[in-house]
């Protein structure tokens, strides 16, 4: 089945641009604990308020290179907010966020753009462009990096095959089912061989079989060295994975195992 292809496809760390590539070169695809750079995501005393609402309070978290972390918690716990902060789509009220030792509080706009090219994000609400086809939506993530057309086409086809959407390439997002849209969002996030993959409720609209496929896909990507953070409410589905799980409740980390 398609997912086996991932083995050959994913080679993170290849062709890293600028600042990001310097400290973060993967050592044979494994992370080394003693290396300062090995802490890919570091959050220090992070707070995020929306007006009077406190979405996150005093979050301290380190994610090592190549880790696979689950963030769970009830609806409104702050999972999405946490991922958005890590992605630099939202600024913290206080506290520090270091991605690959780069402080997001002090990052320039253009460096943030560069960073985002190496971080894949599966948005909870997909965020697909309705006026572009599925293929164009996925290709977009590579277009912004200025890759060559043939490379973009190859990668995009591959990525769509991985999420089982090869035959919907020319469809427009609004004509897709919920689960199909979600898979386009996943394809777009993984097409660029991200160093970090942030996935927000990536299987909320998928049936159990597809969910299992996607989890397998993530595992394959993870095995290539990609750091993965998945926010999900469906704890039980991932339970067997035996990975590190962080439980949020009302903006606080209540369990970490």
């Amino acid at each position, binding site marked *: 089945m398609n997912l086996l292809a991932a083995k050959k496809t994913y080679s993170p760390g290849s062709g890293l641009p600028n600042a990001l590539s310097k400290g973060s070169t993967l050592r044979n695809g494994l992370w080394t604990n003693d290396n300062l750079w090995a802490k890919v995501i570091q959050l220090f005393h992070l707070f995020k308020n929306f007006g009077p609402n406190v979405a996150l309070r005093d979050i301290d978290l380190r994610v090592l290179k190549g880790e696979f972390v689950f963030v769970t918690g009830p609806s409104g716990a702050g999972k999405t907010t946490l991922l958005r902060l890590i*992605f630099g*789509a939202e600024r913290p009220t206080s506290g520090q966020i270091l991605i690959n030792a780069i402080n997001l509080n002090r990052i320039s*706009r*253009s460096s943030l*753009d*560069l*960073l*985002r*090219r190496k*971080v894949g*994000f599966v*948005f909870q609400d997909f*965020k*697909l*462009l309705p*006026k*572009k086809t599925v293929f164009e939506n996925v290709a*977009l*993530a590579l*277009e*912004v*990096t*200025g890759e*060559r*057309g043939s490379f973009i086409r190859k990668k995009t086809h591959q990525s769509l095959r991985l999420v089982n959407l090869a035959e919907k390439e020319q469809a427009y997002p609004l004509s897709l089912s919920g689960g199909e849209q979600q898979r386009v969002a996943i394809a*777009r996030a993984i097409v660029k061989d991200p160093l970090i993959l942030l996935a927000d409720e990536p299987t909320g609209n998928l049936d159990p079989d597809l969910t299992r496929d996607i989890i397998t896909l993530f595992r394959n990507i993870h095995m290539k060295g990609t750091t993965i953070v998945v926010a999900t409410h469906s704890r039980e589905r991932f339970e067997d994975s035996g990975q590190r799980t962080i439980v949020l409740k009302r903006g606080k980390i209540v369990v970490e195992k």
Partner: protein
Amino acid sequence: MRLRLWSYFLRQALMNIMNNRLVHVIGLGTMFVAILIFGTFLFLLINLNTWVQGWGHSLSMSVYLEDGISEGKRDMIASWIKSLPTAEIDRFITKEGALKELRRVLGAQAGLLEGLSTNPLPASLEVVFEKGEGLRLDPDRIKKELEKMEGVEEVQYSEDWLKRFKGLMSLIRVGGLIIGGLLCMGILFIVTNTIKLTIYSRKEEIEILKLVGATDWFVKTPFLLEGAIQGILSGILALLILYSGYYLLSTEKIHFTSLGVFDFIFLPYEYALLIFLASVALGLVGSLIAVGRFFDI
């Protein structure tokens, strides 16, 4: 690589135009209509100006000469007048000619001239000013200069008509400036705001592009190209329609009651070019400003 990027942007812009047809047609239409209105205004203003200046032709000046002036002096005066850029001597009226003219004018009453012993009328030079340029000269100054010359008795011109004429010209100028300025500002406002609306309807697109790591310029460039394409199209379209209108007017000559035939002229080449460039700039700058508004992610 640069080239690849530019061809990508161009393809992107064209695809965006296709994908947002309604919005683009409206934007284009608005720009086109705005530029057409401005162009028509300019066209009419320029023609009005030309016609009114043409009427300046009817300004004539009589230079009355002293009795017994020598031929040499008379020729000197005549050549001085000819040296004025637009003036022309229509005819020379001798003393006898003047009397004949008076007789003709008096008609039935001409009998009263029979009793004259000497001819009391002076000889004169009738000066006319060339069509369209009559007003570049200051008749008052010419009059003063001439009256200072030896052999010139008096200079007369129809100050009344001139006054009206000058008034009309300054009215056209001031009126044109006011309406033109207002029109310009209005068009700028409307076009930039329409562009703002067209881009507003796509602010989600900008947000998503930023979220997948596009640089600001990567996001902006297609919008700018779209704006430029709109500017080019609407500029060309407006000039074409304007020219068609002109063509219709100038073949089917319009007869105004007792004003005879108007000869229309089209916008001078430079004006047309200026309109075109302004329209492209409008599209570009309008998009640039508008797209900047939606960069908060």
